[in-house]
């Protein structure tokens, strides 16, 4: 029983992080039809800014919001520098463009910061834990659940209640018509990248707090996981992305328990095999989006 509870706690933490990443990827995809492979680099950039800020004696209460802000600004900059000139290009061109952007950022970091892993001196509370009925729960896990829930709620309220959110949702549904309704395309797209950057920055904190080190290639795996989660949920569907995050985390946790020890290293291969199967049976994901971006894709 406690074993199950422990795994559920695990699942919620991993799922929350995946959901944050997947939602960021889905927000951009639903509007532009673009899969931003450079999304993972936002995590890396945020990580390096934590290193730099913490090393300069900035208190952690400031480091976290500042690092998230850096990710947000980086995301908006990415759009301005790389994706805006590419707008209207074929989808495959944008996909390859974002891969190139991701590689360029990784190597810029390699060039200016170096390949050696940088350790982030996280405050003590992130590594401490407490016990409830035999289940060990880290304060970080609790933080992750609370923040993920709060952020997801905030994003939902933002999308449902605010004018900007309405514009974003409308643009996700049909970008051309939204523009005809007098919504400024640039501001909607900038908004989408800002939201994606914000989510990536928050995810970066929880991801890096468990590993404590950052290297130029840190962002690749989170990007892949977020990407897969978004696909499972149905690319372009925002609620699907959140669902996909938890489904992917669930599959991973279950496989870790269910696979025999000798097959454990192949866990990732099995997970990706399942992804291919999901795509085969439901090409548009679990919660298929009705948006035009998806039909175009």
């Amino acid at each position, binding site marked *: 029983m406690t074993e199950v509870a422990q795994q559920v706690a695990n699942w919620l933490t991993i799922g929350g992080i995946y959901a944050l990443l997947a939602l960021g990827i889905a927000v951009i995809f639903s509007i532009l039809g673009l899969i931003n492979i450079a999304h993972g680099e936002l995590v890396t950039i945020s990580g390096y800014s934590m290193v730099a800020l913490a090393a300069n004696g900035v208190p952690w209460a400031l480091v976290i919001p500042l690092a998230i802000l850096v990710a947000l600004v980086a995301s908006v900059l990415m759009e301005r520098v790389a994706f805006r000139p590419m707008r209207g290009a074929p989808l495959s061109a944008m*996909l390859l463009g974002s891969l*190139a952007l991701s590689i360029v950022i990784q190597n810029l970091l390699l*060039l200016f910061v170096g390949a050696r892993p940088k350790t982030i001196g996280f405050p003590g509370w992130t590594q401490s834990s407490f016990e409830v009925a035999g289940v060990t729960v880290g304060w970080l896990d609790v933080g992750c659940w609370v923040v993920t829930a709060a952020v997801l709620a905030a994003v939902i309220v933002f999308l449902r209640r605010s004018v900007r959110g309405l514009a974003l949702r409308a643009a996700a549904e049909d970008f051309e018509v939204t523009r005809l309704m007098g919504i400024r395309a640039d501001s909607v797209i900038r908004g989408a990248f800002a939201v994606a950057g914000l989510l990536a920055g928050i995810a970066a904190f929880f991801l890096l707090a468990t590993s404590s080190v950052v290297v130029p290639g840190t962002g*690749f795996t989170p990007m*892949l996981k977020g990407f897969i989660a978004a696909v499972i949920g149905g690319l372009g569907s925002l609620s699907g992305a959140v669902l996909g995050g938890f489904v992917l985390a669930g599959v991973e946790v279950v496989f870790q328990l269910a696979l025999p020890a000798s097959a454990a*290293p*192949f866990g990732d291969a099995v997970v990706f095999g399942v992804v291919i199967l999901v795509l085969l049976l439901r090409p548009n994901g679990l919660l298929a989006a009705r948006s035009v971006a998806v039909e175009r894709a």
Partner: protein
Amino acid sequence: MSDRSRIGRARRFVDDRWYLRALVGAALLSALLGIVITCVQTMGSGTDARVALSFLVNLAAVIGIQTFMGNSGVVSFGHVAFVGIGAYTSSLLTTAPETKRMASMIPDAPGFLLDAHMGFLPATLVAILVACAVALAFGIVLVRMSGITAAITTLAILVIVRVVLGNWEQVTHGPKTFFGIPAYTTMWNALAWVVVAIFVARLFRESNLGLRLRASKTDELGSQAIGVDIKRARLAAWVLSAGMAAVSGALYAHLMLAFGPQQFYVDLTFVLLVMVIIGGPTVSGAVIGAGAVTLLTEFLRRGEQGFSLGPIHVDQALGLTTIVLGSIVLLTMIVRPSGLLGRWELDEWLRRGAARLSARRQRPHAPVHDGAPPIDPHAVDLIQTAAAPGKEEA
């Protein structure tokens, strides 16, 4: 009968037969490549020869990726998986049994693999077969998808194969280095394999199946409406291209003599994709793109050793090459998404140029007739117009 009309008849004879068009184009490209490689081998330094050799090894995979991506329009991140499969298969079959039985290698592998001691050619052929078989298994699923979903699936294939190669301790030596591979790759057998790849790729492109696949790239729905079986055409291209990638892997293995699974992952994928993208979606584009990227990489790699720009002194600029390559891809995507050569092969460009010249010579004041190469672009354009009248080109 005048000379001119005889040439005209000969040209029409070639134009009307897809295999002759393909053979002429492939021969022209191979001849160009052969001249360049011979020059490098006889006149260049040892370093130049090594660069040319690694260019040929990459080129086999680039032509493979192009055969799938250029004709079908589906982005593939997965071909490096088949390069890896090719490298491991041919290494397993050619490495001396004593080496494989060493405690620090793979003594627990199945007996027939331990005892295998083949030559280069049969091992490469088996490697091609294995890669094609794996590609067929993935391909049956892959061809049911399109666009972004297919691209993600190819990425998933890359990850799956990487995980298996990196963890199958018994057979691949897991994450550790596989060593003791005999040195079989030479400039000339690499060139021969690449020439074979060029001919196969060009024949496929010009064949009915290749034409259908290219039509489906231009307009998926339109081509289906006129009876193109996209799944079949894509599957053929996918399996064929995996075989070419496996050749590249075998050449790589017998050139490096030792390698690990990490060599067949995102970094190599990126380099090969850059070559494909910069050249454009044709076989000639693949060759020229790979050549241009190799030259540029070599040039930059010398810069990586350190340079000074006015007041800025850089001792060692690791990653500079990749930054420039990435920026070039970004620029290509923004400015010229169809690549250096655009949608035509080298021989088609030459023919267009010649037709334009002769038209100008015959009637100096008449509007210049655009000597489009026969059949292919017309057919594709026709399909495009039929499917979506007045549709702008993307």
